[in-house]
């Protein structure tokens, strides 16, 4: 019997040529009963292998190849749980010593943690000139033997290199001399010999060379594959005991990853209560605080029910852990909001984890927690993005770095990166590599068959190219590096290092583990997502401002609910800056959906998503909502699932439920289906599930067309799914931000501007929108501005907004704080600002931003004065009046308003003086171009020309090739739709124009107006007239890259 014990998977990045799953599967095919997994200084791949092996009914021997800095490498296999913990601790120590991605280990470390670990020494591949091993290897071997005793073995392999026999002979000699048993391995790097080519390419990528100059860095033959037991026995015919000895190690190593048991941390209870008692106590106490005595009977029964369920599943510690983090955030006044499957329970509501009142829904608690899968519940908590780090550090401090760490994300090789890497390694020129990565999508089946020609003229008969593409296909999906999850935390009772090695993250003060989310799930570890959300920062700032200026103490929970005025505003798509529903797609949906209550917002958030759009569920829902179509259900059993959404599946879990109820999937299968959509899209793995789903549904009497739609919807959910509970949590933030915008547009705009960058829009649009709502906005000024935007006295209905220094380019916050601190009664001269410690460059930037108006200097005059400051008396003349005081004043050319506006845009990306398009309006009118405002008066189907600054270009993946362009002129904004063909024809204009004119027909649907483009025209030339009028010779100045004054517009996918 033989067991392969030296296996390098692709988790030894750029070394192993096969996935752990592939190796396990091949081991099963060849009849192996176990397989060892030994990646280099990492355990990152063993969970994958473990999961795969469990499914296939074989066993893996978890292990690791320890590459030491001061000795020959060792293979290490823990024999029991304690030994595994030692190994994991050993690797953690090595990781934490080094930069991310490296692991520094020494012999001493190994000796320290060697208890109950079996070791195999890996001898050098080459012999010296006397056909013997070098003396230092022998010395090391002796030392290992002394330190590790009977746990030590010596690896023997036959890779068909020259001198195999001599080497084996020498090894046998050494084995006898030092009494170290010889054990056979095959140093496996891939599961089948055909993978050698990919493995060679990986070597090239690792060594940063091409296949042509890689030379001896490649392996000389393809023998490092998983070999049949018989073949191994034949190869070691002369040393049969080496084959048998593998079994000694195998039988000693009975440790399995299933033995790892996750234990919740203890610090979450008080007064010696058990977690369940603590949760019960807290739930009732906080319910009383919120609802008063007596608690409404409905809530009582909900809490009782949930507590019972939690007890059954033993989830109390999890809820308490989340509660603890949320409590900390609340104490620190950090705004947070929970979401995720378990977050919208009554208990989470009373504990303050979420502010969405569950009584507003009728959701069954266990619908969120699938007891069948026995997965831990899932609660993600969003925090203000500027302050999330405090929460993270709180967790590290409370539980210690040895007990809390962030989950890893295994960065996978994506198509573009894969083709680039492979093509580079295959020696293609940089230019070709670029072309190839840009045109991968063209190289389809049809292209292979020669039916379709690629734009760049790639030849399907070019064998080298085909090889590159073949290898790329194999390479896609390979793990490439361990990254840090955005905020998934693992917290344990014992030392985390005993469960899994931890390593330094790229960011300072962060440590993470080697396993990713799926690995954690597979082993049943608890994970809490601590995420960052910009809108929470904005809302927090808004709450602070309302408190300061309107004396209102707001929280997420006490913002007045169900306010009709707020919904009225939302119905008119007056939602620039509002959370989630500010995008073009959302804004054009709002007037159609007309949300009138909170649940409508939940639907609104979920409906404009790839899932429902790809599943073609949007229009049926709208028709049914408008009463144009009767609500009917595909079957009785689906009525229960779909009743709330008028028979149309909109949420992720609805689609999954349908797969379960209608197609007979198990919950686990349904979940696997959804997951696999995202990861295996390219692999054809999905198609078998697709068939299963559609066949299953048709067998149960559903229409094929409906089944296909469900499948497409699931496909869309794969990467961007929204379950109902997520949508509900987001809907709350939508409502709160809308409420603030509705009643306090001044506060809203200020908070939003102070939280930038976030959302879809530039500050200029936020300010224009605020002005439209009657808020006065004042420009940046040395005597009035602070770093952030601030509210000044009330003008009309609202406080006036004073723009902060943060909007002016080139200013630094610390320096502006100096300026503010020295301001006292206000500056009267530029000199006094400089004396406050503000540098001349900064003063220039201030002049550029036209911030000297309060001392009656426009930007030019200010700059003229600032420019002379360099030349002020110094040395012994310090204090004497500068020459500029006595210097004759110089007439500078007057600046036209349009020039000021252009300069405003350069310095602050916005202008309060006028809209740039207003200066060219006359010219536009001459070309019979209408304003965006005039569009509202147009008839459906009218042919118009409209022009404006390009705000957003969006080509969503769901709308095949359609480009949505948002234009802005001095009267408002207009949306236009450009279809693929037209886009290709006017690609240059669309991508380059700052001022774009679109000619086309008006399409009206209620309040929603789109211009369907027929022609596009780049009118950016007109904007140049805003600047100075000079003759423009076709010479050098037009050759250099001109700094772009206007924002090029944001491009979205």
């Amino acid at each position, binding site marked *: 019997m033989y067991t392969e014990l030296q296996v390098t998977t692709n988790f030894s990045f750029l070394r192993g040529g096969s996935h752990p799953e592939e190796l396990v599967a091949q081991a099963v095919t060849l009849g192996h009963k176990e397989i060892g997994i030994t990646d280099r200084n990492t355990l990152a791949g063993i969970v994958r292998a473990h999961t795969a092996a469990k499914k296939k009914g074989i066993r893996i021997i978890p292990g690791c190849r320890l590459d030491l800095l001061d000795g020959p490498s060792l293979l290490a296999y823990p024999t029991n749980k304690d030994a595994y913990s030692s190994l994991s601790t050993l690797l953690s120590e090595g990781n934490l010593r080094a930069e991310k991605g490296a692991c520094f280990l020494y012999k001493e470390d190994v000796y320290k943690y060697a208890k109950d670990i079996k070791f195999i020494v890996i001898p050098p591949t080459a012999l010296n000139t006397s056909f013997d091993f070098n003396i230092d290897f022998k010395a090391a071997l002796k030392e290992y033997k002394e330190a590790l005793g009977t746990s030590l073995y010596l690896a023997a392999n036959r890779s068909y290199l020259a*001198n195999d026999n001599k080497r084996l002979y020498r090894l046998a000699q050494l084995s006898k001399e030092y009494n170290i048993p010889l054990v056979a391995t095959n140093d496996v790097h891939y599961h089948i010999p055909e993978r050698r080519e990919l493995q060679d390419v990986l070597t090239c990528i690792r060594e940063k060379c091409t296949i042509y100059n890689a030379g001896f860095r490649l392996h000389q033959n393809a023998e490092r594959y998983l070999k049949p037991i018989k073949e191994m026995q034949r190869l070691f015919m002369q040393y049969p005991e080496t084959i048998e000895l593998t079994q000694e190690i195998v039988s000693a190593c009975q440790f399995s990853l299933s033995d790892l048991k996750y234990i919740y941390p203890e610090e979450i209870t008080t007064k010696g209560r058990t977690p369940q008692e603590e949760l019960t106590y807290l739930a009732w106490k906080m319910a009383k605080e919120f609802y008063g005595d007596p608690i409404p009977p409905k809530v009582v029964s909900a809490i009782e029910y949930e507590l019972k369920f939690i007890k059954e599943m033993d989830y109390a510690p999890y809820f308490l852990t989340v509660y603890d983090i949320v409590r900390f955030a609340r104490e620190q006044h950090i705004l947070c909001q929970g979401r995720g499957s378990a977050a919208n329970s009554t208990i989470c509501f009373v504990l303050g984890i979420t502010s969405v009142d569950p009584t507003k829904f009728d959701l069954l608690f266990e619908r969120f927690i699938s007891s069948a899968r026995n997965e831990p519940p899932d609660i993600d908590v969003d925090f203000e993005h500027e302050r999330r780090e405090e929460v993270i550090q709180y967790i590290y401090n409370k539980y210690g770095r040895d007990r809390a760490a962030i989950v890893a994300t295994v960065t996978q090789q994506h198509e573009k990166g894969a083709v680039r890497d492979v093509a580079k390694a295959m020696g293609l020129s940089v230019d070709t590599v670029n072309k190839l990565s840009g045109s991968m999508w063209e190289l389809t089946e049809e292209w292979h068959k020669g039916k379709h020609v690629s734009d760049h003229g790639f030849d399907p008969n070019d064998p080298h190219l085909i090889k590159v593409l073949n290898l790329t296909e194999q390479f896609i999906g390979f793990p490439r590096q361990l990254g840090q999850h955005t905020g998934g935390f693992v917290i344990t009772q014992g030392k985390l290092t005993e469960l899994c090695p931890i390593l330094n993250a790229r960011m300072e003060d962060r440590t993470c583990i080697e396993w990713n989310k799926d690995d954690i799930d597979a082993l049943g570890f608890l994970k809490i997502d601590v995420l960052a959300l910009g809108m929470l920062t904005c809302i927090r700032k808004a709450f602070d401002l309302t408190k300061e200026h309107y004396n209102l103490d707001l929280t997420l929970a006490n913002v007045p609910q169900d306010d009709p005025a707020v919904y009225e505003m939302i119905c008119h798509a007056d939602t620039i800056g509002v959370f989630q529903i500010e995008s073009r797609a959302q804004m054009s949906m709002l007037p159609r959906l007309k949300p009138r209550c909170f649940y409508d917002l939940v639907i609104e958030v979920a409906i404009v998503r790839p899932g429902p759009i790809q599943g073609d569920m949007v229009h049926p829902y709208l028709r049914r909502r408008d009463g144009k179509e009767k609500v009917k259900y595909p079957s009785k059993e689906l009525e229960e699932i779909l009743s709330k959404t008028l028979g149309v599946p909109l949420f992720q879990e609805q689609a999954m439920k349908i797969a379960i109820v209608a197609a007979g999937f198990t919950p686990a299968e349904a979940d696997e289906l959804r997951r696999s959509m995202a990861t295996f899209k390219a692999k054809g793995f999905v198609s078998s599930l697709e068939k299963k789903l559609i066949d299953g549904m048709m067998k149960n009497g559903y229409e094929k067309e409906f089944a296909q739609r469900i499948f497409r919807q699931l496909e869309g959910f794969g990467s961007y799914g929204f379950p109902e509970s997520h949508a509900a949590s987001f809907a709350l933030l939508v409502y709160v931000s809308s409420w603030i915008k509705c009643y306090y547009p001044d506060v809203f705009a200020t908070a939003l501007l102070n939280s930038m960058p976030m959302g879809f829009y530039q500050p200029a649009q936020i300010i224009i929108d605020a002005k439209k709502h009657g808020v006065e906005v004042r420009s940046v000024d040395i005597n009035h501005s602070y770093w952030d935007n601030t509210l000044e006295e009330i003008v009309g209905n609202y406080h006036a907004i004073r723009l902060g220094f943060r909007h002016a380019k080139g200013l630094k916050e610390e320096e502006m704080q100096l300026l503010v601190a020295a301001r006292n009664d206000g500056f009267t001269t530029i000199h006094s600002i400089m004396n406050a410690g503000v540098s001349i460059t900064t003063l220039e930037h201030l002049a550029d931003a036209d911030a000297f108006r309060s001392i009656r200097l426009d930007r030019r005059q200010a700059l003229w004065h600032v*420019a002379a400051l360099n030349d002020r008396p110094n040395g012994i003349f310090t204090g004497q009046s500068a020459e500029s005081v006595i210097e004759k004043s110089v007439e500078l050319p007057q600046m036209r308003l349009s020039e000021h506006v252009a300069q405003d845009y350069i310095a602050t990306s916005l202008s309060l003086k006028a809209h740039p398009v207003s200066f060219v309006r006359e010219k536009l009118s001459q070309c019979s171009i209408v304003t965006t405002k005039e569009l509202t008066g147009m008839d459906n189907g009218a042919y118009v020309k409209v022009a404006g600054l390009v705000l957003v270009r969006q080509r969503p993946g769901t709308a095949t090739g359609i480009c949505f362009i948002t234009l802005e002129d001095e009267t408002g904004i207009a949306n236009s739709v450009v279809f693929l063909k037209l886009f290709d024809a006017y690609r240059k204009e669309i991508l380059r124009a700052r001022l774009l004119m679109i000619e086309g027909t008006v399409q009206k649907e209620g309040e929603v107006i789109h211009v369907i483009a027929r022609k596009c025209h780049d009118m950016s030339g007109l904007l140049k007239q805003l600047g100075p009028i000079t003759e423009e010779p076709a010479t050098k100045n037009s050759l250099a890259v001109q700094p772009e004054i206007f924002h090029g517009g944001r491009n979205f996918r």
Partner: protein
Amino acid sequence: MQQNKHFLYQINAKPADMSKRFVSIWFQHLTTDWMIRRQPELKDVVFVFAAPERGRMVVKAVSAAAQERGIQPGMVAADCRTILPSLQVFDDKPERANKLLYALAEWCMRFAPAVAIDGADGLMLDVSGCPHLWGGERQYLKDIIIRLRSFGYHVRVAIADTIGTAWAVCHYGHTTPLIRAGMQTEALLTLPPAALRIEANITERLEKLGLYQIKNFINMPRRALRRRFGPSLLTRLDQALGQEIEVLDPIQPVIPYQERLPCLEPIRTATGIEIALQKLLDTLCERLAKESKGLRCCLFKAWRIDGKIEQIQIGTNRPSRNVTHLFKLLEQKIPLIEPDLGIELFIIEAPVVEDLTSAQDTFWNTINGDNAAIAELLDKITGKLGVHSVHRYLPDEHYWPERSVKVATSLEEQPATEWRTELPRPIHLLHEPEAITVTVAIPDYPPVLFHYKGVPYNVAKADGPERIEQEWFLTEGQYRDYYCIEDDKGARYWLFRLGDYKSGEPKWFMHGFFA
């Protein structure tokens, strides 16, 4: 010497010396025009040169066609592609422009003796006293433009009293390129400040202040300008106006390695030729020594009085300026020279020279592996037997035996990798493996008997197999299993089997002999 000349020149030239005239030439698409010249099929192609900059390919030069379509230097190549998918991007070679300019500068010496390179895409000519030979400045400029355009270059030129004004008008002018003597101020007034060749940040600041044209500030108090923009603005202004001298730094053309020896009397004897050769070699090698060069190739030409040219040529394995050695090499070939009625002129030329430090001349240090002696011996052998009589092999990083060695190009070439010693490799490797028949046990045991060229060999000892796979990126095919074989007479051979027994009957080959 050079410095002094300039010095004198400056003193003699009065600031208002109106006799000075300068021509500025600006190649608007220098490298791309050159590319089209080389590959005329690119004429209608939109293309750019780009080079990596902070991880992105940035456009460095654009063709005229690309510029028309809005592509500008400084843009990111990928962005340009999204706008213009048909855009071709070639790798930019940073030294290319300079080389080109240098060649153009040499060519332009036909117009004026002093030609300087101006920035990355221009030339500056001191043409004082030249234009009248062309019949006036207008004709002169026209000739420059026409000739350069006929090469395919987009050029702009301008002529003026000062370098500054000529440059300004060339790059920014929009009326006439011919600025008459003393008319600098008028020519500059409407030009933008950038025309003064000042730093971008000063230009930017001037424009921010609304000073878009030189006339906006030319009359401002000089102190006010200096305090705000530093001395460089005023210097540039004065230079353009001719109030301050600006010195041209003309290129120095390379003088070819060539020596001439005219004879008073026609030479007809071998001794005479030898003397001439000796003299010419002395002077040539003296110059080579001065410049730390050595020659790799040498031409010795003899001009006969009947107009025919006799010529002999030698090459060396490494750069040399050793007169004795070179003389010996050439001497061998003197008999090939047919003096006939006599030779009136000898010329020696070294068309290929390489750097050679001077240590060699002092001592021949063979201990340090300096193989000058071997090189000179090889020079003699190849001189007699022909270039292909001697080979030198170096190791190459390939497992495949045929590719594991390569022929060295010179004696100096160092192996890029160590010779592998840990593996048995035959002293004599056959160019082509030769088929043998064997008696062997399967699957991978060495043969017990084989026939090579009809002769049977009994195998006494064997080692192997060493499996070497095809280098799949170069050739497809089966792997080889190599065996080292010793026959019963003690001779050793390197045999291999192609492929294995799973897929049919594999063939066996002889591939080499051990000593």
